[in-house]
């Protein structure tokens, strides 16, 4: 029994394995996703991030291993137990997964309609509260097809947090967004995590997100956990696969080299950047 299981709102993965058609996609992954922190699962496309997240939320059943929420085994939970737990989970999907036939307001109100006994006025108040929390105003009556990608993500976040969940999952929250909007979404996820004291798990391959919000980072490579650490450790990591992933571009490699030299005191504060770059 891990001592951390006595933390509240913690998720623990124990030796998760998942395969499709005889091919192992997730291979023996164990990790602890901590409370009040942004836990990032990073890796290249096809590394198993999304499958791992779907195992975490129960959309896929792991072939082996277990997922523990606050020490309770999700895999062995009965249907009622799972239903109760799922009401404490919010998820932002890659494509936002908003209901096409509903307006923004109806989308956010849907979990309240389904699971609470609040009257219409109370529900509207709550919806306006979360929509203003995600900085989305004057969009209540619009349909998902009438709003931008960034706004859809914010509506997705608003819907995910409207029931005050303990756990927030975000699958590729920045996919298809410009760098500026990505930054806004990252900031929002970070703020919400801290504000509500949630356990947030973010699936991403966006290095900006990693550096911006990655309190804890799990690097997936070919279906297994290759590296684990924080955004402070990642730049100086000696893991070859991780370095290949994060320093895929020459520019980033140069930036890393410079930081390494800087850390060793070989570059002074008043460095001549033109000279160094040449």
């Amino acid at each position: 029994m891990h001592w951390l299981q006595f933390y509240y709102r913690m998720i623990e993965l124990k030796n998760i394995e998942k395969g499709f058609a005889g091919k192992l996609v997730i291979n023996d992954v164990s990790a602890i996703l901590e409370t009040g922190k942004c836990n990032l699962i990073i890796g290249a496309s096809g590394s198993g991030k999304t499958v791992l997240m779907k195992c975490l939320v129960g959309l896929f059943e792991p072939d082996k291993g277990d997922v523990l929420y606050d020490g309770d085994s999700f895999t062995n939970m009965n249907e009622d137990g799972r239903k109760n737990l799922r009401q404490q989970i919010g998820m932002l999907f890659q494509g936002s997964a908003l209901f096409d036939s509903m307006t923004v307001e109806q989308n956010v109100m849907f979990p309240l309609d389904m699971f609470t006994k609040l009257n219409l006025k109370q529900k509207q108040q709550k919806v306006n509260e979360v929509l203003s929390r995600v900085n989305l105003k004057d969009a209540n009556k619009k349909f998902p097809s009438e709003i931008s990608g960034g706004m859809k993500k914010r509506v997705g976040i608003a819907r995910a947090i409207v029931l005050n969940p303990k756990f927030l999952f975000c699958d590729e929250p920045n996919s298809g967004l410009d760098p500026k909007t990505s930054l806004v979404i990252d900031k929002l996820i970070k703020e919400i995590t801290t504000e509500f004291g949630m356990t947030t798990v973010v699936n991403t391959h966006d290095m900006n997100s990693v550096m911006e919000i990655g309190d804890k980072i799990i690097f997936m490579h070919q279906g297994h956990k290759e590296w684990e650490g924080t955004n402070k450790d990642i730049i100086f990591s000696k893991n070859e696969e991780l370095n290949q992933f994060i320093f895929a571009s020459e520019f980033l490699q140069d930036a890393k080299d410079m930081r390494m030299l800087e850390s060793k005191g070989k570059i002074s504060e008043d460095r001549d950047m033109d000279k160094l770059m040449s």
Partner: protein
Amino acid sequence: MIKGMVSKPENWKLYWKELMHQCNEIGVRSIGIVVIIAVFLGAVTTVQTAYQLVTPLIPKSVIAVIVRDNIILELAPTLICVVLAGVVGSRIASELGNMRISEQIDALEIMGINTKAYLIMPKILAALIVVPCLVILAAVLGIWGGKVAGELSGILPNEIFNQGLLEDFIPYNVFFAMSKAYTYSFIISSIPAYYGYHVQGGSLEIGRAGTKSVIVSCILILLADYALAAILL
């Protein structure tokens, strides 16, 4: 799939709202096509039956008897449901397929909602409620279409048609038609729901699921048609 649908609703009010929505989508939105097809089916049946009955030994009121029984026993339930399999079936398959591909079904699952119960059950129940009503409407309009065609073309005056309608009427035929209607309602709602719910891939697969569900529904309707006729008649 059927087993997974049977569970206590998370919120009765929302399930009821969804049922009413589906009744509107499946029933009310299909009225137009059902009216057009039924009226012309009746009209054509009258004209073609009169064309085949050339002997003066058979009274003209028999045309009305044939039109009535044909429409009640076969045309109203079977043909209308084959058309509905296309109209309603492709809509159900594409709606659920699109929800699956765009992760809307996953979003509902994550919220703790039984998606089979919330998305599929109301569609099947709605079909069981409204399709038999559409079949009754089609039977009535089909017979009326036959009567109008008989009068307009001068084949059969209204009085003789009305007289024929009352001749040798067997109420059991209505029961048989309703048995068909309920069986087909289940087929045209559950088969597309199955294919739509289990779509994997992209928009191409949604189209394929729609086509496949219509083909399978039509074949099953024809098989059930024969089976019911063999068992109940």
